[in-house]
Structures are given as structure tokens and as C-alpha cells.
């Protein structure tokens, strides 16, 4: 990681973290009326380490817990926040919510309310880009819970036989919704890749540099026509399954491990970031503007949905 990349990593990590923290605070403040939100505090290094490789033509398929993916991928922050909080000016006019953020202009083909469902889309998108001569590759995030869905297995196999230019990133946060992954998952997700004849790698998902390095190799393979790669990035979910989840299922010590698993101080220990304070101030200023603007906006009052055939 060059100093410039480390600085960019810090800025994106902070944008994800502070956006998420402010969003959680706004939920506590009653600003999220009539809908739900998923937080990814602690998991940011996976999104950022991957997104640092993003080229303009690359496309992303994300998950129900995908707001940080969207931030790292470059979705307009105001449009994203407005969609999360159901305000006008959201990516879907505030009608769809954070599980349905689709922003083709920034290459985000969708967060997703169905666990595992984005992977088949990513295979088709990646193959479709290749067919049209685009240099773009597909990236799909999925959780360790999703790793046990049929869609994920079907997609890994199809990606392998089509040699789709695809980077499959398992953001393994230790939970399948509210159940410990150890109770739901046989073997490791990275090892499953070998069953489909594609490379799989276990990565420390709390280390943005480790994710960056592994993702770099995976992007290079995809761009060179060498097919898909599976990265299992073991990370840490600081919060519950949803914002407001009482986490009765979770041991208190586990819920308090953010300081030891936090990717931000870890990056700072390894890299002296030039003008760190300036980066932090820039992030806060930007988020001040976005939150003040968006949370003051009205909510859509009618179902002004795009017309669809059928």
C-alpha cells in the first residue's frame, strides 16, 4: 500500500464508520421512521480494501448489510442516506430503502434483501461485461450466512465454468443473522472454492491492507481473463443483526471487542498518515453537510414508482 493508498483507505474507512455511527445515532433519535437499518461497524476494512481497486467499469453486487459497500464504491452520500432514511432524493426516491440501493451510474447494481441472491447476478453481470468487450469486472460481497445458500454455490460453480471475471468476497462477520457461524457452517468458505476449481483465500478482514493485497491479486486474475476468485475475509460485526437488535443471543464480551478488532487504529499503527487530521476533518465536514441536508428533507408522500411492464 502506497502512502496515497493508505490515506485513501483511511478516508474511506472513516466515511463508512462515521456515516454508520451517525446513522445509528439518527435511528436512536427517532429519525428512521417506519423502516429498518443494518449497521456494519467493524466490517469496513473489507469494503474498503476491495473498493480501492475499483475501476470505473467495475460493477458491484452487495448485501442487506451493504451501506458501507455503497460508500466505498462511490454512491453519492446524500442519495444513499436519503434512501436509507426514506427521504426524497434517494437512489429510488426514498421508496426502496437501504436493502435496495441500485445506482448504475456508480456501478452499484444492488444491495439485496435476499441473502445470497446477489451472486448469480454478479456472475451474469461479469460475463455480460466481458462479452461486450468491457474491461470491467464484477464484485460480489456476501456474508458467511449467505455462504450456505444454494444461490452462492450455484453462482460459484457457474462463475468457474464460465471463467467469469469476478471477485467473490465473503465478508465473514461470525454471524448468520443472529446465529453463530460455527453452528451453521461446515468447513471454511475459502476452502469451498477449491471444490469448484477456483482459488480461495482466507484473509484477515480487520486488516485493510491484507484485504487490499488479496483483492488486488483477485482483480488482476479477473482482468487477465483467469476467472473468479473467492476471498473469505474474517471480520467483526460490532453491532447486532439490525440497528436496535437487543442481541440476547450474544455474549457481552464478544459484543465489546471492537477496540481489538477495529481496522482504523490498525491501519494507523502501520501507516503514518500524512495530514490525518485534515482527512478526519474533511470526512466530518462532508457528513455534517449530508446529514443536515438529508434528514431535513421531506419523506415521499406517494408511490411514485417507475412504471414497469406487467
Amino acid at each position, binding site marked *: 500500500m502506497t502512502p496515497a493508498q493508505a490515506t485513501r483507505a483511511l478516508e474511506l474507512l472513516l466515511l463508512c464508520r462515521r456515516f454508520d455511527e451517525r446513522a445509528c445515532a439518527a435511528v436512536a433519535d427517532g429519525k428512521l421512521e417506519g423502516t429498518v437499518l443494518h449497521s456494519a461497524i467493524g466490517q469496513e476494512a473489507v469494503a474498503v480494501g476491495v473498493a480501492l481497486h475499483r475501476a470505473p467499469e467495475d*460493477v458491484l*453486487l452487495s448485501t442487506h448489510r451493504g451501506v458501507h459497500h455503497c460508500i466505498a464504491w462511490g454512491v453519492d452520500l446524500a442519495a444513499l442516506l436519503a434512501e436509507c432514511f426514506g427521504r426524497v432524493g434517494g*437512489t*429510488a*426516491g426514498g*421508496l*426502496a430503502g437501504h436493502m*435496495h*440501493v*441500485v*445506482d*448504475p451510474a456508480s456501478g452499484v*447494481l*444492488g444491495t*439485496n*434483501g*435476499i441473502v445470497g*441472491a446477489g*451472486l*448469480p*447476478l*454478479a*456472475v*451474469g*453481470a*461479469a*460475463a*455480460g*461485461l466481458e*462479452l*461486450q468487450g*468491457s474491461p470491467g469486472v*464484477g464484485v460480489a460481497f456476501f456474508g458467511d450466512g449467505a455462504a450456505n445458500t*444454494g*444461490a452462492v454455490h*450455484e*453462482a460459484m*460453480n*457457474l462463475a468457474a*465454468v*464460465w471463467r467469469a471475471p469476478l471477485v467473490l468476497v465473503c465478508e465473514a462477520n461470525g454471524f448468520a443473522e443472529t446465529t453463530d457461524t460455527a453452528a451453521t457452517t461446515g468447513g471454511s468458505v475459502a476452502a469451498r472454492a477449491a471444490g469448484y476449481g477456483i482459488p480461495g483465500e482466507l484473509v484477515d478482514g480487520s486488516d485493510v491492507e491484507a484485504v487490499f493485497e488479496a483483492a488486488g491479486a483477485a482483480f488482476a486474475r479477473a482482468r487477465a481473463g483467469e476467472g473468479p476468485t473467492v476471498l473469505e475475509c474474517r471480520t467483526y460485526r460490532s453491532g447486532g443483526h439490525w440497528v436496535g437488535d437487543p442481541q440476547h443471543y450474544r455474549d457481552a464480551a464478544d459484543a465489546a471487542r471492537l477496540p481489538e478488532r477495529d481496522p482504523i487504529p490498525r491501519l494507523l499503527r502501520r501507516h503514518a498518515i500524512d495530514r490525518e487530521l485534515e482527512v478526519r476533518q474533511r470526512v466530518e465536514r462532508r457528513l455534517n453537510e449530508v446529514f443536515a441536508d438529508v434528514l431535513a428533507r421531506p419523506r415521499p408522500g406517494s408511490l411514485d*414508482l*417507475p412504471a*414497469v*411492464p*406487467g
Partner: protein
Amino acid sequence: MSADATGPRVLKGWQAVNAALHEELERDERVVVLGEDVARAGGTYGETRRLLDRFGPGRVRDTPISEQAIVGAAVGMALVGLRPVAEILFVDFLGLASDQLVNQAAKLPAFAPGLSVPLVVKSAVGTELGLGAQHSQALEGWYAQVPGLAVAWPSTPRDLHGLLKAAIRADGPVLFLESLALLRETGPVGGPDDVVELGVADVCRPGRDLTLVTWGTMRGRSLAAAGALAEEGIEVEVIDLRTIVPWDREAVFASVERTHRCLVVTEAVREFGPGGEIAAEVGEACFDALDAPVARLGSPRVVAPHTVALDRLRVPQADAIADRARELCR
């Protein structure tokens, strides 16, 4: 397979589909075909023959037996600008991929203004062919309930050809059903530019006494029933909807206003079936014109048996259709 250059083409149903695919792949390089057995094998029913040779492995793709991945990949392709035609061998198997069709394809356009998800899921209905309970269901009603999906079920070679072309050119997801038995029937087919618009019914027999609304496998036997009734002096107007969503309300309502009677004939299970929806709409829109209750005929609520003879006891036949129509005209 084409007729002489001066006359209309006369093709079997599968050849009509094959011709439509060749023409659309030729016309628009964004069109791709994917599914089990579609490339090297040329399709289980022959519908994709020679596509691989003509258009290559990038645009004509074999897949594993992975229905979710097939439909999901088609959605992903559509999201990056292609127009995929995904084959799911029998509509019974589409349950395996319903998430991708219902939760992804149908909903994505609502999540981004201006986004279109142009794709066709093409799937067969295997009624009365001895294929058993999991290859014989008419499930158009399941998918007709989903906002964002169009559902077409043509039943002649001409409509198989023309409607498939319309479905491929449509900007949203279309479930395109084919009666497997009808793929072997022969009939005239339009030229490369003849498109049968989605949502336009075919009034395939005019009549003054009763409007019979149907589609798919039931068209042929409904026409047979109408022919038999004509000998008794009962003139049945047969309307083949061809597209179940969106359906041609205008054609049906106009007909019922003239005939004052309506019978909806479906292969689908009658209870909670698509025929009930058509009947209810006719009842509401044409109440003052009706001389009899709007009636439905469909399959009973039973699991399809596996032999042809037994399956014919399940699915409406021409004599049962004629009996019901006759009762309504008394």
C-alpha cells in the same frame, strides 16, 4: 425449414421458436441465450438448434442444472445492457429460480429510475405428455401476481414466433410459456419483421352467443368445442389472450358487451387460479351486459397423474368445454 420465398413460412412450433431466436440474435447483438442444453445440444426440444454455430459460445451459453444461477445470471446480464433469453426447461422448475425472477428481475426497475431489466425466461408446460406431477403444471397464475412481470403463453407457431420476438424486445422481464405438445404442431409463421405485440388478444373465432376467453394449451380444444357448438346453432366467440399479463381487457370486454355471456377456460387449477381474476374483472366491468354468471373452467385441485390418459381426466377437454358453454347459453 423455411417455405419458398413467395409464400408464408409453415413451420412446427419448435422451428418457429428457433426462427425467432435466430432472427433476434441476428438483429440485435445484445440478445444472448443461456440455459441447460441450449448450446451444444441445440435445445431439448430443438428450439436452439444451430444458434451456437451461428452466434458462438459467448452469446449462446450452456449452463449447469442451476436454475437460480441461470435466471440470476440473466438478470445480471440485463443489468449490464444485454437482452438475455434464459431457458428453464419446465415451468415446474422455475420454483427453484423464483427468487431471481420475482425478487430480483421484477423488482430491480423499481429501485433505480430509468433502469430496465430486459429478459425473457422461456419455459415449457408439459401437460398430457405422460411426464408426471412435476412436469405438467400450468403456473402462469403464480407469476401473474407479481408486479413487474409480464406473462405470455402463445399457442400457435405464428404466435410463438411473433410473441417471442416481442418478449425479447420488451424492456422488462417476461415469462414466456410454451405448451410442449404445441411445439410439434405445424402452422404458418410470420416473417422476420412480424412481431405479435404483448397484451393483444387474438379473436380466433367470431361468435354472437358467448365469449370464451382462454390461452395456451386450451386454445385448440376451445376452438374444437366452438366448432361442435356451431352445429347446434350456438356461436361462441373464442378469444386467445396470448398474454396473461398484461391482458387485453378491451378485446374481452367489447366481446362480452356483444355476447352477454363469458366463460374463462384455463389449464391451471381453477381454484384461486388466473381464470378467477379474468372472470372477476369481466363481472365488474360488464355487469350490466351479462345474461349469465361469468363462469370458469379449469383443472381440479389434484396432483397431476403421470399417464396421458389419466392427465386428460384432469385437464379440461373439448367436450367439457362445450358442455359448460352450452349450459351458459341455455
